[in-house]
């Protein structure tokens, strides 16, 4: 097994670092946290201009899938506001995989400019982990569909140009066989967006669909094929599209601050920093494995579940350790005098819990691993 980066990936990485250094200012990071909108058009456009984005759409074939991993690994380490461009590129990949040529023409170039962001409407107020039971209805009316319902956790709906929307189209079949995915413009009449502030700073939304009419050409991946389309999206999401390197900047922040305040020589702190470094390395390797699988044509769904569970729980452990070791200073928020790591330690303590929820809870991922990897019977939940 060769763990060395190929030269073209190293060059790609250096290019990412250059673009981030030029486009992500401290003001942009502050704006992200004050607005709750984890997106920077400055960064998106700069990446688009440098040609980084088109190489990072999964399956598009413009770049090595390893580059996709490298992109989000680097953006995350540098704490660039990458969340919405990540989702957008992932959806572009799904559209590339299952969409029509017309859909590809509509959406993919728009995403690749860095301007046309995409948001996801899967979960509903009553259906989170049990997404197969969602109730938002799409009813055919000639060449059109009429959609009614409500979605929850539609992050970036207030900025996005596009939406992918999971709907129920067939009541006659088992739940997960009656779902259809749509991709549609967010400015379609009948969609309203209400903000949902969260303790992790990030703003998300509830979205409502009131007689939203879209043409049949916006059906993504076929009628009643929504479950399969979501599977493709989840395999991308849990693998290499970010979220698995998030403990790295936390370690860096803690380490630098601990050096400043003289805590870095404490043996308990040293043991914990080393253990976090190990976890970061393992999370990186598990992510890299997903990229390798994708690079050889596979869909790393199960490996992505394993990576997500490990990386997010390791991040939570690191956050708990570091906030505790920072003591009172670990309570102070961004830019408050005396705040540990200028507030990053406090921020991560508020942010980290959500990571074992979104994109599939740890329990759901463990169920997947138990059933599909270990071959245990479907859980008597």
């Amino acid at each position, binding site marked *: 097994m060769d763990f060395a980066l190929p030269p073209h990936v190293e060059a790609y990485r250096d290019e990412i670092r250059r673009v981030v250094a030029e486009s992500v200012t401290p003001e942009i990071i502050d704006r992200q946290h004050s607005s709750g909108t984890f997106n920077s058009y400055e960064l998106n456009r700069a990446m688009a201009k440098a040609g980084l984005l088109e190489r990072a759409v999964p399956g598009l074939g413009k770049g090595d899938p390893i580059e996709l991993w490298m992109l989000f690994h680097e953006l995350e380490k540098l704490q660039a506001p990458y969340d919405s461009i990540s989702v957008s590129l992932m959806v572009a990949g799904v559209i590339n995989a299952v969409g029509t040529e017309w859909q590809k023409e509509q959406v993919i170039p728009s995403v690749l400019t860095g301007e046309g962001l995409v948001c996801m409407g899967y*979960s509903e107020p*009553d*259906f*989170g*982990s*049990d997404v197969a*039971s969602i109730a938002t209805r799409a009813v055919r009316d000639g060449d059109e569909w009429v959609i009614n319902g409500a979605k*929850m*956790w539609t992050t970036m709906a207030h900025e996005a140009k596009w939406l992918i929307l999971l709907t129920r189209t067939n009541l006659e079949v088992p739940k997960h066989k009656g779902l259809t995915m749509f991709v549609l413009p967010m400015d379609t009449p009948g969609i309203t967006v209400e903000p*949902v*502030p*969260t*303790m*992790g700073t990030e703003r998300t939304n509830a979205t409502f669909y009131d007689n939203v009419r879209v043409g049949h050409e916006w059906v993504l991946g076929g009628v009643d094929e929504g479950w399969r389309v979501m599977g493709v999206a989840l395999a991308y999401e849990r693998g290499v599209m970010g979220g698995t390197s998030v403990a790295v900047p936390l370690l860096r922040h803690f380490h630098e601050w601990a050096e400043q305040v003289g805590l870095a020589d404490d043996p*308990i702190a040293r043991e914990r920093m080393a253990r976090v470094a190990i976890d970061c390395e393992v999370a990186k390797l598990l992510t890299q494995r997903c990229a390798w699988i994708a690079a050889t044509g596979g869909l790393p769904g199960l490996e992505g579940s394993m990576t997500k569970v490990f990386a997010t729980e390791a991040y*939570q452990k690191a956050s*708990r350790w570091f*906030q*505790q*070791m*920072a*003591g*009172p*200073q*670990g*309570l*102070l*928020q*961004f830019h*408050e*005098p*005396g*705040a540990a790591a200028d507030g990053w330690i*406090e921020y991560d*303590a*508020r942010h980290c*819990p*959500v990571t*074992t*929820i*979104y994109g599939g*809870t740890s*329990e759901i991922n*463990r169920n997947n691993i138990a059933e599909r990897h270990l071959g245990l019977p479907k859980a*008597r*939940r």
Partner: protein
Amino acid sequence: WERLLETGAPGMGVAESRGGGGASLSDLVVVAEELGRAIAPVPLVEHMIAARLFSEADIVSGEAIATLALHPTDHSGMWRIVPAGAVADVVIGVDGADLVAVRNDSPGGGPRNHAAAPLANRNARVGERTVLGSAREFDHALAEWKTVTAGALVGIAAQALDIAVDYVMSRHQFGVPIGSFQAVQQGLADLPIHIEGGRLLTYKAAWAGDRGTPGFTDADDCNVTDFAALASMAFVFVADAAAHATDRSLHYHGGYGFAEEYDIQLFYRRARGWALVYDDPSREAVRLADRLFARSN
């Protein structure tokens, strides 16, 4: 705070001879647990203990708010990150070799923080200053603070568990309450163990404090009745238990746990904030070791 004034809670821990309610430390722990259950944003824990140290009439009545600086002043005479520092009229703490009470203007505000608590830095050398004793005399107050804070954290943890149980019974997924899934049940089943164990430990610490006689620190024989050691034990154990209970309760709320309209995220934040304003439980455990296990060097 106004409503608390009417109950007499601010001075309840002060001896009756000094105008207080004559309540024991054990009583204060019970009050603190209710406070924690309500995650009440009032500086009652600090005030109740401060009033026992410095029983001026307006403090006993609660008209003036008093608090404790949990760490000594820094080189510039400032107490850093004082709980209730943003609102207190009187701060009691260690400045050099002395335990002092300092009365000066409260800043009214302080740094934004995890628990949205009224923390602030306070100057120990400006305003009306009363020397209460030597710095070492603060140790007892600090043990009282750890004990009563442990009581408050037991309350946070217990309420977070109740909220979690209500939520997992009302939230349905896959056609059943999520509380019927064994994964959720097994995760929640640990919480009452830690909460009830932590409550017993806190009660024992308060009992030792009320008893007032020297106790044992013989951990090798599981014979610990020393107040400072038990207070430290209660702080470490309950701080971790409350952090864990609120983390699990938040987690089983799914995405809703993060929405600011749900209270559980406040429990999560205050469980951390009310403990860490003193210190890392691990560091406290190392200090506890110094009390339980003599150092050979």
